[in-house]
């Protein structure tokens, strides 16, 4: 492999905490790797198990549910 | 007979303070006349680059 492994991670972020926290990380200019693709949800409890399974089966290397 | 007061307010100054006062009054059912000396509202805050502690853009 000529390139280093770059995982694709799907993130489900609760609008009221994790998403707000991710916004704050931006405001604070905290740097982190650009591999996560954020999806805003109104509560982490909204994330149906099928969404996680489908994400993994369609090629995601990881799924983060944050809330 | 006491005359009812007029339901309009004049706000002099279109900076951040004047604008907030105007918005609050307009949202509470008063007619607002906002008078600004220069050609546009915004005041000194519009001239600032960023604001602390969040370092958000002042615009």
């Amino acid at each position, binding site marked *: 492999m000529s390139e280093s492994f770059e995982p694709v991670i799907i993130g489900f972020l609760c609008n009221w905490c994790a998403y707000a926290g991710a916004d704050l990380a931006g405001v604070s200019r905290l740097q982190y790797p650009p591999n996560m693709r954020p999806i805003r949800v109104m509560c982490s409890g*909204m994330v149906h198990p099928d969404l996680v399974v489908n994400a993994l089966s369609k090629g995601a290397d990881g799924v983060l549910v944050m809330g | 007979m006491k005359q009812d007061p007029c339901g309009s307010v004049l706000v002099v100054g279109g900076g951040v303070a004047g604008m907030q006062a105007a918005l609050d009054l307009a949202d509470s059912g008063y007619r607002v006349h906002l008078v600004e000396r220069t050609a*546009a509202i915004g005041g000194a805050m519009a001239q600032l680059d*960023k604001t602390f502690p969040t370092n958000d853009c002042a615009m």
Partner: protein
Amino acid sequence: MTLSEVVHVSGSLGNFQVTIRQKPRYVDMEKCIACGLCAEKCPKKVDDPFNAGMGKRKAAYIPYGQAVPLKYAIDPQHCIYLTRGKCRACEKFCPTGAIHFEDTERTVTVTVGAVIAAPGFEAFHPQGLDVYGYGRLRDVVTSMEYERLLASNGPHMGHLVRPSDHEEPKKIAWIQCVGSRNINRCDNPYCSSVCCMYAIKQALVTAEHLSGGDVEQAIFYMDIRSHGKEFERYYESAKEKGVRFIQARPHSLFPGDKGKGAVLEYVSRDGRPVREAFDMVVLSVGLQAPRTAQELAQALGIQLNESGFARTSAFEPVTATHPGIFVTGAFQSPKDIPQAVTEASTAACEAARALAPARGSQAREKTYPVERDVRHQEPVIGVFVCSCGINIANTVDVQAVVEYAHTLPHVALVENNLFTCSADTQNLIAQKIKEHGLNRIVIAACTPRTHEPLFQDTLREAGINPYLVEMANIRNQNAWVHQQDREKATEKAKDQVRMAVAKVALNEPLERLKVNVIQQALVIGGGIAGMNAALALADQGFPVILVEKSDRLGGNAWKLPTADTGEPVQPQLEATIRKVNAHPHITVHTRATLAQASGSVGNFQGILDVDGTQQEIRFGAAVLATGARESQPVEYLYGQDPRILTHQQLDEMLQKRPEAPAQARSVVFIQCVGSREPQRPYCSRVCCTHTVKAALRLKEANPDLDIYVLYRDMRTYGERERLYQEARRRGVLFIQYSLEDKPQVEKNGQDLCVTVTDPILGRPLKIPADYLVLAAAMEPNPAQDLVEMFKCGTNEDGFFTEAHPKLRPVDLSVDGLFVAGLCHYPKPLDESIAQAKAAAGRAGVVLAQDEMRLDAIKSFVTDKCDGCALCVDVCPYQAIRLESVEEGGRAVRRIATDPALCKGCGLCAATCPKGGVMVHGFTLNQLEAQVEAALAKAV
């Protein structure tokens, strides 16, 4: 009305006639489309006041790019035609014929019930202070000029360069208190209150603006005044990031090498003369009342104080000396943005209070066009990519994202904007929606948490449903957090846009539910803040329930002898309590707490526990004013000797034993007891002024008394600086100590003795003390129960967290809740009262509506529901019930959701195995589409 000034006011409260002079704009606002051709063709260049004179603009101009109204104007002092009668180039090129040289000055008279004066401040002009070399040394700039140098819409597009050679400065000095706290060289003895913090901000932001980020910043100061909420942490972070804080006042500035930069001479703390060269020097200029404010005060017939600001009292902090005229912003006193925004709401509240019977009599509703029905149309998507000045564009290749967005399905239009949130871009978006028949919009910019409502409103104005917009958060969750990796950040931005496009294609128009607003308020806390909030709401005509935990109203104010203005507190406090108790719209409950609360803005329900009995209440908005208290010191032998007192104990003793000071010879104050320490890192804001006031009171009682104040930084901000100057003039000795070398207190037999290291001699100083007064920190009263009930938040220190520290300083993050007084942050009486009235004003905005629209993000039942009821129990809000419905002649079981109770959390949707219940705007399909789009490799 722009370009306008008030020239005359007559009449009285309820009925003023105001004469306003409007200067000619020479541009027809109706016709101007802000295309900018007039400015492009205008041959006359003028120093640009918006850029503090550092850039040029034309005589035909807009003040700045995001100006409101975005209409050009012609500057009659510089326009060649208006001054010399020839040119008219702009007129020839204007495509809409908007140039109107025959425009003349107009005078209009309006009738209003009240006036709010907010003419702002002007920055101190340092030209007269030749020691700083301003005007003589090119690389010495004022803080306002520096702010423009940093700004992305400034003269150098946000690339920081110094004036002399346009090179990046690598070593920058800030000199504090230029035009403030100075009785010799200028007329501004007060502290401007904001310069310490803006200098620290500029020092920190500078690092972000320079390539490589390596820069040396030094701030020359007298006292660092970081007395605001979260300010001390910001100051500490600046120290950690390497900003040098030098307590010295440079006495001379000389030209640097080859006339560039500047050499500063100052005397260090240990008495050594130092010469140090800097690439650039920023003068932290103070705020002062502008000349225009004096003219305005004259026209309004209101008095000014000795500093030139409007005269007000601590108990009516925004009320001018003429009834019906209110003042706010920096014209009231020098202040920062949160304070200005707070007191703007205070002034609005006072005006609303004065005119309560006339509410609604003159108001006009904002009307929106009828919504275009897009439900059965194919998606036609418009994508707007924001550069956010340099915030996004510095990291993300915005152009590449724009090009990429063109290739996505259904995308009909892609545009890039410098600031997508600016008013002119909003108009542009609305125009493009109509022009191109767009029916779905993607905004790739900042976070929907702050900006989605703005864009939703734009969609409404363009005649489409507000829920047809999606935002791709390429700033907070991309550009700002991946600053080192432009390529990957750009890839991520493309992915984010693709995900948003995939989702928005599935967005459906949604209806907002209306709820009736319960036009009654709850105020929790019966201290000076709570009582003022209750009175201000009740005077606007809203019934108020005032809940106090203890058995009497008044709170901390009972223990306070005078306000910082010197006005006695007790008579005012007693009058306030009488008014509250007598007010027909206020119900007071003492020994009462809120035991339960539910509901949302406009419609809360709760249970009050009043002395053991419970009663149900309903309210549309609430003000939390639960207060704070003086903490118990745990050091300096506190509690081991009756002569060691806190501020409140000293005040109490002086009340009971007025003869005590005459019998004493020496009193020592120690500041920052329990504040600005690792375990309680905030500044308690009120203690420095309290000490100075107490010291003056002691000197008054016994002029021979020796008074020592051991302090870290004296924070007598604003007009309070005069008290500090007065105390020094009367012989109070101020000795600075550091956190690393705190004073020691010993008891030898009956004698109290305090030892402190003298900063100038560098040697320990032993001071005998008849009384030792500890300036104990203010700590918030516990409010965890309210936090849990309302799901609002507190910061690490236990103070309620406002919705936005600058722009929504009295709103809590939960809509319909407002905060006032010490539970927000320690503050003096006048600021507590101002904030209480501001909270009442903001709550009044909610209560003035008859009905309120709820968000449309709610659960809904699909035809796949078979009534299995798995979701009923998981719903945390009891918003789902099972019902039986007739279908095709037989009874079937189905669930039904209650949109008023539903919060849109979607636990039901995630629980349902059949897709029988979903949340609008976040359906399984929509989320699935985002996942798929995220995983489809970017081209």
